[in-house]
């Protein structure tokens, strides 16, 4: 069999599609790999890119052969498919992905250091978008139980390369700003713990980004200068049931604070805002709390080829099928 025949054969086309589908399925579900990967990240792996390259050659050859034979009904489908494949290749060179934490009132310059290092995904020609953001508000919509979220929206001001203005982002629909997509992916609270040392010197006066939502969730923070670990839980509406005695009849927003020094628990109890707790040589009080959101940032120039490519492929497939059916029914009538 000639190579050209193999390249345009239905078996090769089906086999390559099956390989890509199986590879993407295994990688994205994480059934045989330690961590599930994202769809685009999986498509950027060499096995998928190599299969896509062979598929691209096969489709281009088919298109040329069909065009020469005067068979033009699937031309747009081929074009759509080529756009999708080319888009994946462009994406594999230019995709930027990262997540950042933004608390109410925080201003960031959009530098690489503003992103959570483990979430950064930069392809060869990718860079973080040049955009400065000031987040002014975070508005969560809680479920009735208070333990879940329907929706989180937040807003503020931005200054991009060419323009500036106000923006609103939410957890449902990505916002396209200066060619970059922004979506809210997480929500939590950032308490400000005021910690002083033995001589009254301030050891900590900063907001700590903590995962304190939903109410029973616990997170901890440490300071480099002391061996203590501060564990916190936050109950914005106090303890609803069963915890009144544990909290000593305290009402309003409550914190469950546990201070441990290596394996030794020094304090374990409920505290109110601004309540001062003295533990050994240090004293701790929680003076303020702010909300934060985790924002997913995605910039991928390949998407501008992939999405139109999918639209063209789907429309042309339906249109081509309809034309073919019409021709067949015409032949039957004749």
């Amino acid at each position, binding site marked *: 069999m000639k190579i050209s025949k193999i390249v345009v054969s239905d*078996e090769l086309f*089906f*086999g*390559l599609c*099956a*390989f890509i589908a*199986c*590879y993407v399925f*295994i*990688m994205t579900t994480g*059934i*045989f*790999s*330690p*961590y599930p*990967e994202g769809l685009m990240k999986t498509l950027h*792996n*060499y*096995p998928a890119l190599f299969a896509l390259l062979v598929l691209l050659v096969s489709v281009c050859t088919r298109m040329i052969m069909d065009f020469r034979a005067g068979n033009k009904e699937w031309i747009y489908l081929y074009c759509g498919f080529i756009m999708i494949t080319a888009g994946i290749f462009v994406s594999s060179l230019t995709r930027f992905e990262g997540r950042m934490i933004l608390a109410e009132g925080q201003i960031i310059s959009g530098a690489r250091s503003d992103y959570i290092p*483990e979430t950064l995904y930069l392809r060869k020609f990718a860079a973080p978008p040049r955009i400065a953001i000031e987040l002014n508000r975070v508005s969560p919509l809680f479920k009735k139980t208070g333990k879940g979220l329907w929706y989180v929206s937040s807003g503020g001001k931005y200054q991009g390369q060419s323009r500036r203005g106000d923006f609103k982002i939410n957890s449902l629909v990505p916002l396209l700003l200066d060619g970059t997509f922004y979506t809210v992916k997480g929500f939590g609270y950032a308490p400000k713990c005021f910690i002083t040392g033995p001589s009254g010197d301030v050891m900590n006066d900063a907001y700590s980004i903590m*995962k304190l939502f939903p109410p*029973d*969730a*616990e997170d*901890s923070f*440490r300071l480099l200068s*002391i*061996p203590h*670990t501060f*564990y916190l839980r936050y109950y914005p509406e106090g303890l609803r049931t069963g915890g009144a005695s544990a909290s000593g009849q305290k009402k309003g927003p409550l914190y469950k604070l*546990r201070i*441990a*020094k*290596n*394996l*030794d*628990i020094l304090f*374990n109890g409920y505290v109110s805002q601004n309540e001062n707790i003295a533990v050994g040589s240090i004293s701790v009080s929680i003076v303020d709390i702010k909300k934060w959101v985790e924002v997913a940032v995605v910039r991928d120039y390949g998407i501008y080829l992939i999405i139109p490519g999918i639209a063209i492929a789907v429309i042309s497939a339906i249109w081509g099928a309809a034309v073919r059916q019409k021709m067949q029914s015409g032949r039957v009538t004749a």
Partner: protein
Amino acid sequence: MIKRYALIFASALIIALVAVFISAPGSYDFFRFKMGNYDIRGETASVKDAIKLFSASISGFYASGGNPAGLNMFPAEKLIKRRIFMDINYAKKAGQALVMDRDKSDIKQITFMDPVRAVAVVNESWFNEYQDYETRKKLSNKKANIITVRYFLKKMWSKWIVVEYEVFGRDDKIPPVPVEWFVRI
């Protein structure tokens, strides 16, 4: 016709599996782990040994006032070691030594997240006493420290090492293992 395409699909699936094993590091070990081809008994014993050595080493470091003998054998991350010696040195500067006697240690649960990561929940009882660093005279009464510790361990260079731990009161509700633990290390 259908048979031929079924054969092509099966071949594509096998090639995809091989590609996954090659392109995703650690996936073959994970596959074996998922399929139950994992020495749970042996690894459980190793995790228990690591936790015992961890507790014994901590106790030794505190009792000796920060003698670093055995530090290389101590199955812990650098930051944990740093916190322990920081605490010992602060007490030493104040002329004190904290002596920690382990009374009981009851391993409640060991969960393997994947072939190289495990989480262990341990009920521990300690008696802590402050002594004068030089004379070793008692400075405080023995205080019972009844805790539950959740250890996060990672297997590195064929040894289980404590990379993080959380200390709870015995009555505290232990929250679920944080999602970051699955992707952190």
